[in-house]
């Protein structure tokens, strides 16, 4: 290892194809295949209705329509409900939808019929001609209606409660009762969604010659899709390949599988004997993929004079939408990650996961953590306000200290394992953050601005994020006779630069040139054992697996090279793909080592001549040793005992317009600790993106459902994703690198970090500017104006 790439800002290899317009996203595939067919879906216009009759008679008259499916056309496993991906004992009333609605629809957007035609235009014409007779039912929209349970989403789910889960460490209620001070808070967060620039999409091709099905899907888990497609279509797993091409962003929504279309597209391709494509449009993405975030929390907290938490008792209600395909992952994460960097002496949390007649709720970047962080940080701020203390002091009083790791919370995390933090240094992070944002100088700034009639506020928020959850990822490293290194890992990529970051690891571990490494992700033909890309796990899981697999390949390379060079393995080093005996001229290319690793009968080029049976080996021994394999390869898997825990703290200074109640960001600061950084450029990019998404979630975006369950803002016109004009003009970032002891590279995940504290940090800053509590997010100028009126009415000061 001469020039170490780990930890450096290596430019991304994937950029070349993206910048030239040569990326290959799902909708780009097979575009020149004249046999390609296109699908469109009839979706429910009602939030809750019984389907009385579906009449497709007019559809097949449409020129260019090949087929239409409704529930009645589905058989076998396809006629069963979609899988409940992550069962949990507390999910006593889990429900999933059918690929096509059976007799009831439970949200606007639920798939009812599937049309395949020569192009998408014609497919949409056909969809418009399907007539459905509905018996409308009253919908349940929003958490309040779900809790009130005057009506239910599913007849057989009493009170709309899908699950109720309680965890307790110590005796929180007794501790609160005995505490010198206690507070009660009620807090709300509304719905938002991932909204990647590319929606969902699936292409499938059935090859009758080989009886194989190839599925390309814009997914965060190709192995997951493969398993579902095989099971649902009754195919042997070996007959199904799933390939994830370039993906235009995921942020969580694409980890859900199988989407109805992910099954119907392959079904149609097999039935019609022609390739079929489904490309979700923007409106469909809003009404038929997934949302997240909506929760209501009730907090009771007891604390001492220093603001130390003595008891924390949280009850919350989680809106999981119409179905529960992804189990209880989001609320479990909220309930456990709410604790952040703090150590309440006694903690009890109980949540109810509720049905509503709205789009399903599954993880969105942060996955329940933004809500938990919002609740805990609002509580910290409330304690500080109550005691008249600086907000950073109250936090410091509650931090887990650096010498307390591993820290056991006595709770069970989302992966079914103990919630145990591996490492961290929260006091150091806070010190950096205060410096970065100018915490101690802020009062001077406030006074200066006040003198100009301007209102400013500052807020901070801290979080801890379980990253790199199991169960495992694997990697296969193959050194070709050209010296090129081909690496496959099974999880997928959707913009994180894995082809670059993973190649950095390989180049360092193996001692090869970065340019000679090629990484393939998300292709079940290359690596059929994999889990997926979510929970900030790719670097930790696949990065570690790739490191381990590279070590195996290296070990073998050194063994063969030692034999060829008649030297001891201990005396060898590999630099830029050349194995040499340290301090001598004796050397051999890794490519040649690859040749030697694979005894051949046939020569196909100059290099392979050297490996034929008359050229190599001891004629007295088998060409391949009993405990060896041909080829210069390494394969390994990484399966950690539990998650790593990254952490960070954000601070923001906002200005609120005294007249218009508009909210402007003046400064945004981030301190981030994800252990060792593989590529700081990529990590900072992830933080930038997370912060922008967080700004969206805190100040602009929401899912505006009306009482009848119609989503009123299912477009980019009205769902206010930030443009450049809405994000901070700069984001100050400082890193702390507290390595994880759990993996060989000392890394932790970074993907979700940027978005976690946003709701909390903006609420804190706006509260600080305005002088009244902010208990619900997101917040718009219109809402801030309403709060001003309310508090002007309530206060004598006016």
């Amino acid at each position, binding site marked *: 290892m001469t020039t170490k790439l780990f930890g450096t800002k290596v*430019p*991304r290899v994937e*950029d*070349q*194809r*993206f*910048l*030239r*317009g*040569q*990326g*290959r*996203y799902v*909708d*780009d595939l097979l*575009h*020149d295949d004249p046999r390609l067919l296109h699908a469109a879906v009839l979706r429910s216009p009602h939030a809750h209705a019984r389907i009385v009759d579906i009449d497709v008679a007019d559809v097949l*008259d*449409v*020129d260019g329509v090949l087929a239409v499916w409704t529930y009645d056309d589905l058989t076998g496993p396809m006629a069963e409900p979609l899988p409940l991906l992550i069962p949990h004992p507390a999910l006593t009333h889990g429900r999933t939808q059918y690929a096509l609605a059976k007799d009831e629809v439970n949200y606007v957007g639920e798939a009812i019929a599937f049309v395949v035609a020569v*192009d998408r*235009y014609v497919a949409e*014409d056909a969809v418009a001609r399907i007539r459905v007779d509905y018996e409308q039912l009253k919908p349940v929209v929003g958490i309040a209606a779900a809790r009130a349970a005057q009506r239910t989403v599913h007849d057989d789910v009493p009170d709309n409660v899908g699950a109720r889960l309680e965890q307790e460490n110590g005796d929180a209620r007794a501790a609160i009762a005995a505490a010198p001070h206690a507070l009660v808070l009620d807090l709300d967060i509304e719905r938002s969604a*991932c*909204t*990647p*620039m*590319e929606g969902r999409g699936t292409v499938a091709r059935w090859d009758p010659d080989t009886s194989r099905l190839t599925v390309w899907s814009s997914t965060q888990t190709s192995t997951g899709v493969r398993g579902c497609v095989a099971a649902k279509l009754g195919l042997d797993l070996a007959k199904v390949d799933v390939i994830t091409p*370039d*993906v*235009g*962003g995921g942020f969580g929504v694409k980890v859900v599988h199988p989407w109805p279309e992910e099954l119907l597209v392959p079904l149609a391709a097999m039935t019609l004997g022609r390739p079929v494509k489904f490309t979700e*449009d*923007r409106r469909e993405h809003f009404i038929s993929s997934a949302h997240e975030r909506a929760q209501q929390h009730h907090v009771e907290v007891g604390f001492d004079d220093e603001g130390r938490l003595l008891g924390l008792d949280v009850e919350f209600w989680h809106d999981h939408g119409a179905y529960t395909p992804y189990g209880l992952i989001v609320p479990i994460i909220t309930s456990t990650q709410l604790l952040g960097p703090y150590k309440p002496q006694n903690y009890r949390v109980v949540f109810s996961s509720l049905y509503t007649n709205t789009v399903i709720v599954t993880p969105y970047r942060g996955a329940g953590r933004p809500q938990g962080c919002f609740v805990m940080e609002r509580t910290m701020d409330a304690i500080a306000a109550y005691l008249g203390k600086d907000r950073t002091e109250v936090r410091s009083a509650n931090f887990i200290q650096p010498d307390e790791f591993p820290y056991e919370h006595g709770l069970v995390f989302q992966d079914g394992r103990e919630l145990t933090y591996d490492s961290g240094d929260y006091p150091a992070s806070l010190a950096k953050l205060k410096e970065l944002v100018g915490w101690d100088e802020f009062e001077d700034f406030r006074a200066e601005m006040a003198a100009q009639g301007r209102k400013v506020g500052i807020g901070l928020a801290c979080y801890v994020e379980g990253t790199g959850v199991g169960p495992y990822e694997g990697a296969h490293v193959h050194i070709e006779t050209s010296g090129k290194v081909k690496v496959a890992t099974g999880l997928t990529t*959707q*913009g*994180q*630069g894995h082809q670059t970051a993973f190649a950095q690891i390989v180049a360092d571990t193996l001692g090869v040139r970065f340019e000679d490494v090629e990484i393939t992700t998300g292709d079940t033909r290359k690596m059929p054992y994999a889990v997926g890309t979510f929970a900030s796990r790719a670097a930790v899981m696949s990065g570690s697996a790739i490191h381990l697999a590279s070590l195996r390949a290296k070990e073998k390379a050194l063994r063969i090279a030692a034999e060829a060079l008649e030297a001891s393995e201990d005396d060898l080093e590999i630099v830029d793909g050349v194995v040499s005996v340290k301090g001598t001229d004796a050397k051999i290319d890794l490519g040649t080592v690859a040749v030697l690793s694979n005894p051949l009968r046939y020569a196909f080029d100059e290099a392979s001549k050297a490996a034929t049976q008359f050229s190599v080996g001891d004629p007295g021994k088998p060409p391949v040793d009993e405990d060896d394999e041909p080829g210069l390869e390494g394969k390994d898997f990484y399966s950690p005992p539990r998650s790593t825990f990254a952490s960070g703290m954000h601070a923001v200074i906002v200005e609120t317009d005294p007249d218009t109640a508009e909210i402007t960001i003046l400064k945004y600061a981030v301190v981030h600790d994800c252990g060792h950084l593989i590529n700081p*450029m*990529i990590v*900072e*990019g992830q*933080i*930038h*993106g*997370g*912060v*922008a*998404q967080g700004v969206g979630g805190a100040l602009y975006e929401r899912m505006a459902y009306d009482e009848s369950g119609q989503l009123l803002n299912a*477009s*980019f*016109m009205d769902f206010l*994703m930030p*443009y*450049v*004009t809405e*994000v901070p*003009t*700069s984001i100050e970032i400082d890193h702390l690198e507290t390595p994880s002891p759990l993996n060989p590279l000392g890394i932790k995940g970074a993907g979700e970090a*940027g978005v976690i504290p946003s709701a909390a940090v903006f609420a804190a800053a706006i509260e600080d500017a305005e002088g009244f509590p902010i208990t619900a997010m997101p917040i718009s100028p219109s809402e801030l104006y309403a709060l001003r009126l309310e508090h002007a009415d309530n206060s004598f000061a006016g």
Partner: protein
Amino acid sequence: MTTEQLHDVRLHVNGSVHEVQVPARRLLSDALRHDCGLTGTHVGCEHGVCGACTILVDGAPVRSCLMLAVSAVDSEITTVEGLTEDDGTPQGRLSPVQQAFSDCHGLQCGFCTPGFLTTITAGLRDNPDPSEEEAREMIAGNLCRCTGYQNIVKSVLRAAEIQGEIQGEIQGEIERERG
């Protein structure tokens, strides 16, 4: 339903002529992607808000999802595939804007990128030396969900710098020749 009438349309894209047969309703974005095979132009919303499908029509950035292919007959179109510069290689050399995005990590998933590249290419032609605020204004109509725009703004400024350097070199050569 009767068969839809097809129109013969000559599209001038990146210096080449594409003769396509499309129904009147074919969006220009779809015609470029599916009829011309230029899949570098991406479709992110189909209602003109996200900017991913932005192309240059007679040099000016335009949403290709808000134009009909039949209406584009008299125009010279540039897509992301047409931004690279000829350097004798089949691939061509990245334009200053493309190079700047690579230098500054101005892209992540790459889906919105073509719309930014075309928009900025035209923007820098009109304003070769933008301030940071002008750089922000230049990209204010394009959505990106990955980067938080920080590095895209840097890319605009870096692209201007690269362009300036190239301009300087050309100027230098001319002056040397005049000697």
